[in-house]
């Protein structure tokens, strides 16, 4: 009794009761499709976040002042940053990061702005592409000139064109604003988030010399956050330690631990771990529905065995062995589960892409996911099919033949 014959019989039987077969598969379909979409979105999300981090650079370290513990004298100065770059060979770029929310407006439009004050090194650390013009330079930074760099999306919404170089933007708080000249337009960042919301609703990101930001918002020149980029990935940790050391020396606060150095890649690992656990957890919950689906398969197979008692008797009378009957029913439950699994796989992938589109995540559908899901649904079919199949196989031929 060969496999082909068994499969043919199983398909005949499944086709002879299409609605019931479909309903039986539904549990498997729902189980597999939700596991697939969750896992592929989870992995896709990890990839996206990793990608965003890698844009910032794998060798970047963020040094911050613990503002709750710091005294005025502990804050980092522009001079500190120059010295860090000059004295520590491992440090290739270093920039202060100052941040303000404010308002930016052109003649056409006014929008909430996330204003970043940095120096000219920011473009290297941020690793974004300049589409038009250039990033602001050393002189503009030193002199605190009123220049700004915005991204393409912002340029389009303010000026109706991507090439906004030379245009003027009014930037500041709602009460006081200053004119700044756009010297460059970068490629839009954070595409991941931009897809999630209406472009118009998102705040624009504006880069300007930190020195200009100080003037614009009447702030002192204290810096609480800076980014450094090492000359190589291997030297990143060392660069961080050296930088922290040098800052402590310069501020004479060795006794107090007020500076924090964070490797951004380490943070990435943490985020990915959390995301991985989260994905696994939801997938596990979804997998429970797969078990429920399996119980559904078992239930229908038991009904089917009872309904086909006479058929089993006839088959035995004409020479079917116990194993023949066993395999016939097992094949049937495996095929039901497998078809369910395949439909679930297709729906799951489709669902992942659909949801991914909304969330701006490209789902990661790997061959492993496909193989594992098919294998898993077969396993469900075998596991939940064995009991009904054994029940069928063990029927006494005479009693089965007498069954009405």
């Amino acid at each position: 009794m060969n496999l082909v014959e068994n499969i043919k019989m199983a398909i005949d039987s499944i086709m002879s009761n299409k609605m019931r077969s479909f309903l039986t598969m539904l549990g498997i379909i729902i189980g597999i499709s939700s596991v697939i979409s969750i896992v592929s979105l989870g992995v896709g999300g990890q990839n996206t976040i990793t990608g965003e981090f890698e844009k910032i650079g794998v060798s970047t370290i963020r040094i911050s002042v613990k503002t709750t513990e710091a005294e005025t004298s502990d804050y980092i100065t522009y001079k500190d940053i120059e010295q860090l770059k000059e004295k520590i060979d491992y440090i290739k770029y270093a920039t202060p990061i100052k941040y303000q929310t404010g308002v930016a407006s052109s003649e056409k439009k006014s929008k909430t702005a996330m204003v970043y004050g940095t120096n000219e090194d920011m473009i290297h650390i941020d690793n974004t592409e300049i589409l038009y013009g250039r990033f602001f330079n050393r002189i503009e930074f030193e002199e605190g000139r009123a220049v700004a760099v915005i991204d393409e999306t912002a340029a389009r919404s303010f000026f109706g064109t991507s090439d906004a170089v030379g245009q003027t933007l009014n930037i500041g708080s709602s009460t006081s604003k200053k004119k700044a000249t756009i010297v460059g337009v970068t490629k839009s960042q954070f595409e991941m988030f931009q897809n999630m919301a209406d472009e118009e609703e998102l705040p624009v990101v504006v880069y300007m010399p930190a020195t200009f930001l100080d003037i614009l918002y009447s702030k002192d020149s204290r810096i609480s956050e800076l980014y450094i980029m090492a000359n190589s990935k291997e030297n990143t940790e060392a660069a961080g330690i050296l930088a922290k050391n040098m800052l402590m020396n310069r501020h004479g606060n060795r006794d107090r631990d007020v500076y924090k150095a964070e490797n951004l890649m380490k943070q990435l690992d943490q985020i990915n771990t959390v995301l991985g656990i989260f994905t696994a957890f939801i997938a596990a919950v979804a997998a429970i529905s797969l078990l429920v689906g399996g119980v559904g398969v078992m239930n229908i197979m038991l009904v089917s065995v009872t309904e086909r008692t006479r058929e089993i008797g006839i088959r035995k009378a004409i020479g079917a062995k116990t194993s023949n009957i066993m395999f016939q029913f097992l094949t049937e439950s495996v095929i039901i589960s497998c078809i369910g699994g395949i439909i679930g796989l297709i729906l799951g992938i489709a669902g992942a892409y659909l949801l991914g589109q909304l969330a701006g995540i490209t789902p990661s559908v790997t061959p492993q996911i496909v193989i594992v899901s098919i294998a898993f649904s077969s396993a469900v079919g075998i596991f939940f099919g064995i009991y009904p199949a054994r029940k069928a196989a063990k029927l006494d031929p005479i009693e089965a033949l007498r069954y009405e």
Partner: protein
Amino acid sequence: MIKLENVKKVYTTGEISLTALKGISMEIKPGEFVSIMGPSGCGKSTLMNIMGCLDRMTSGKYTLNGRDISGLSDNELAEIRCREIGFVFQSFNLLPRMTVLENVELPMVYAGIPRKERRERALAALEKVDLGNRIRHRPNEISGGQKQRVAIARAIVNNPSIILADEPTGNLDTKVTKEIMKIIQKLNDDGTTVVLVTHEPDVAQYSKRIIHMLDGEIIDDKLVNDRKIF
């Protein structure tokens, strides 16, 4: 070929036990055509099922083609049913979802015969029972007589040495009964041993030997003198 020695069958349902066969001894030789007759409930079907290795006897000895059946496993019995015995039932017992051709092919599936040969042999068997033209129909699309022909074709397709027919004409009218008996007689002429259960003396007259049973015992066993031959 078939040798029964003091075969007993006791059915136990809960507290009550019923002796359906009270020690049957008989012998059937190759090429015989035996009718078993007797009132309802006398144990004819029980005897047939034991001879066909579908059911196990309670005690006694059954030798089929020189082989002692009593100690065999379920799988060995299935093997015997597959290759050495052909069953024909009163209620046809065809599988409703399969076509005529598929029904006839099924015993060969269990015998492990390759597809192509199955097709050829099934068609040949259907030819023998004069049913070469309705092979794509399903059992509910053909008449009772035609169903029984299919069942006979299915019974002979693995070339068994014995055909066991339990009231094969019980559901058929006189005309069709004759046609079926003609086929069975032809099979016997070709060398197959036939054992047939029937209530109708007319039908029994087509066989060569008649065994009468009563209450689980053989009360009469004689050859047919004026046998009807087609």
